[in-house]
């Protein structure tokens, strides 16, 4: 079991430029079922992917692959033709919010937006548009979602993941890789890893991801990685106190970040005294979350949280 994506997920790509093509190829090599692409000026064509199979992904495949991905004019047409139930957006920033709304309009239940640098006002609009629609947005500005050996949607390296017991949710890409790698090395493994992205306006938040992992029978614990800016971690702490039945460990980046400066991510900024790492760490500790003092300790903190729970 897993959350959001699995071996039956049929994925559409919006934005088949250089980046979209590169990562679609990697996803196919991993074994993800990429069923179609949307590119208005290249509709009717077929994009061919071939290469060596990434055996860290879906098992039982031959050593090479050749996949033809049909290109459609609209998401609606692509969904009608392929039955896609997830879409990954690599569309450039000026057009990405529109791509998200198009996917939502076509009823794609899961939209994962990797694009970084979308204007905030566009995302404010897109979130408003998604409000009354039964769709889930992950991102933008995120690495994507992966269920090891089943489905990889996004830009994360597949081979560092291994199937296991921990749900991972993170605002940062490379810190997720760091966390996943440690969980692979210490044998806990992952059910699903969700990158929720580093933008101030995003779709899925920590509480959404925690809810999904809490309801997933295969997930035994959750590792969350937050950073400065906003109050999503504080909200998560409150939700954990009230609802979480599984052990949680966490790391918060940005203890040394100066106020008023954006630390790379558009959302990573301490403003008006709000959004400090200290406040987030305090809230999570109060919620019983085991905090990793440094990123090197994330795997150990998760292990400790699991052991603490089993002693009870």
């Amino acid at each position, binding site marked *: 079991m897993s959350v959001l994506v699995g071996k039956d997920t049929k994925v559409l790509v919006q934005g088949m430029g250089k980046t979209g093509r590169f990562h679609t190829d990697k996803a196919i090599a991993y074994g993800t079922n990429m069923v179609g692409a949307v590119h208005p000026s290249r509709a009717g064509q077929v994009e061919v992917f071939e290469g060596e199979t990434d055996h860290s992904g879906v098992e039982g495949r031959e050593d090479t692959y050749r996949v033809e991905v049909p290109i459609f004019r609209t998401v609606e047409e692509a969904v009608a033709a392929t039955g896609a139930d997830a879409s990954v957006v690599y569309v450039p920033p000026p057009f990405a919010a529109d791509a998200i709304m198009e996917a939502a309009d076509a009823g794609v239940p899961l939209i994962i937006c990797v694009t970084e640098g979308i204007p905030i006002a566009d995302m404010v609009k897109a979130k408003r548009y998604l409000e009354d629609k039964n769709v889930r947005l992950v991102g933008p500005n995120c690495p994507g979602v992966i269920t090891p050996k089943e489905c990889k949607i996004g830009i994360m*390296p597949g081979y560092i993941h291994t199937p296991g017991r921990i749900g991972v949710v993170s605002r940062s890409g490379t810190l997720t890789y760091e966390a996943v*790698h440690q969980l692979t090395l210490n044998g806990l493994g992952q059910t699903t890893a969700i990158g929720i992205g580093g933008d101030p306006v995003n779709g899925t938040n920590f509480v959404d991801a925690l809810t999904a992992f809490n309801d997933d029978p295969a997930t035994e614990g959750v590792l969350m990685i937050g950073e400065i800016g906003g109050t999503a971690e504080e909200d998560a702490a409150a939700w954990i106190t009230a609802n979480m039945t599984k052990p949680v460990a966490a790391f918060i980046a940005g203890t*040394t970040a100066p106020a008023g400066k954006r630390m790379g991510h558009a959302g990573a900024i301490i403003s008006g005294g709000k959004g400090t790492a200290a406040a987030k760490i305090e809230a999570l500790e109060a919620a019983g979350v085991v905090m990793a003092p440094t990123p090197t300790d994330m795997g150990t903190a998760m292990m400790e949280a699991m052991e603490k729970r089993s002693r009870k």
Partner: protein
Amino acid sequence: MKIHEYQAKALMADRGIAVPKGRVAMTVDEAVAAVRPLIEDSGNPVVVVKSQIHAGGRGKGRFKEHPDVGGVNVVTDGISGGIEAAEERVRDLATKMLGSTLVTIQTGEEGKQVNRLYIEQGIDIATELYLSVLLDRATSRNIVMASTEGGTEIEVVAAETPEKILKVEIDPAFGLLPFQARRIAYDLGFEGAAFKNGVKFLDALTRAAVELDTDLVEINPLVITTDGDVMALDGKMAFDANALFRHPDVAALRDVTEEDAAELEAKEFDLSFIKLDGEIGCMVNGAGLAMATMDIIKTVGGEPANFLDVGGGAEKEQIAAAFKIITKDPNVKGIFVNIFGGIMRCDIIAEGVIAAVEEVGLSVPLVVRLEGTNVELGKQLLDESGLDLVSATDMKDGAQKILELTR
């Protein structure tokens, strides 16, 4: 992106938002020349000389070279002495202010050099209020934030008297609705002509915020004049850098002299760099990992010299540029390269580091931690290069090693 007050006020005036008239001055003569037309236009013998820097707290700020001169000066000499007296006083002030260093609560001790002045008409103030439009991350919508406590920093009001802060959510599908604007105006105590002007001001301001893709518009103070006019006495605007592509006119307002030279250079190479005060330079891929690298340097007892995210798809040239920017900082006593290669391949990082060292040399210790895609190839390249560097097994190990080497 931040702009100056006089630029923000020009953008506001273009969009029907009432502001006092003023003129920008880069020289003493320009400052003096601004006085007569402003006084003749308003009939008010008072003018205000305001330092233009990208930092707040100017009113309470002081010049290093002239501790008796503040960042904002109200010139009242014209009341009894006529325009000539006002001009003389402005000449004296401008001479002292231009080129001098203004220290405010936001500039830090080193202060900021004042290169531009804004000479503005004096306004007869009846009431000072606070108004801003900004993103509320919890709801993913813009809000209007207002308070009767004008002239005070909103953070202070929020901490001491939060009940005095009014927040109204703007639905992006509709904008600020007229009844919402009226409600804010009632709650702020607007009456008579000021009520009408206040509602108009709110409508124009919230439209401008959306039209210009602002991160923040802050009017502090917003004033009601003795005539019932509603005006932005101060005006601050910051813009969403990701939306500047559709506002070339706003992008052109950028004043690079207000920005850190190293940060600007980094931007040219698409690197995300922020200068800090410590002695350990770091080069990392990914914003979260870059922040966490700063944190871990601090945890083991050091101080980071910078935040530097080379991004997910950096080329060899960008890595080399990043390395050079770090080594330029005279405070840097050692460098910690921390890479978890996903899309970023470790061999590209290694090639970039080697190229940079060949070009600019290496006079400080270097610790490299590589993990992820093509890690073996990356390590092999570094080994074969003969570079004098120390390898680390993980982040903490790397942070400890660079600290030992710099002690």
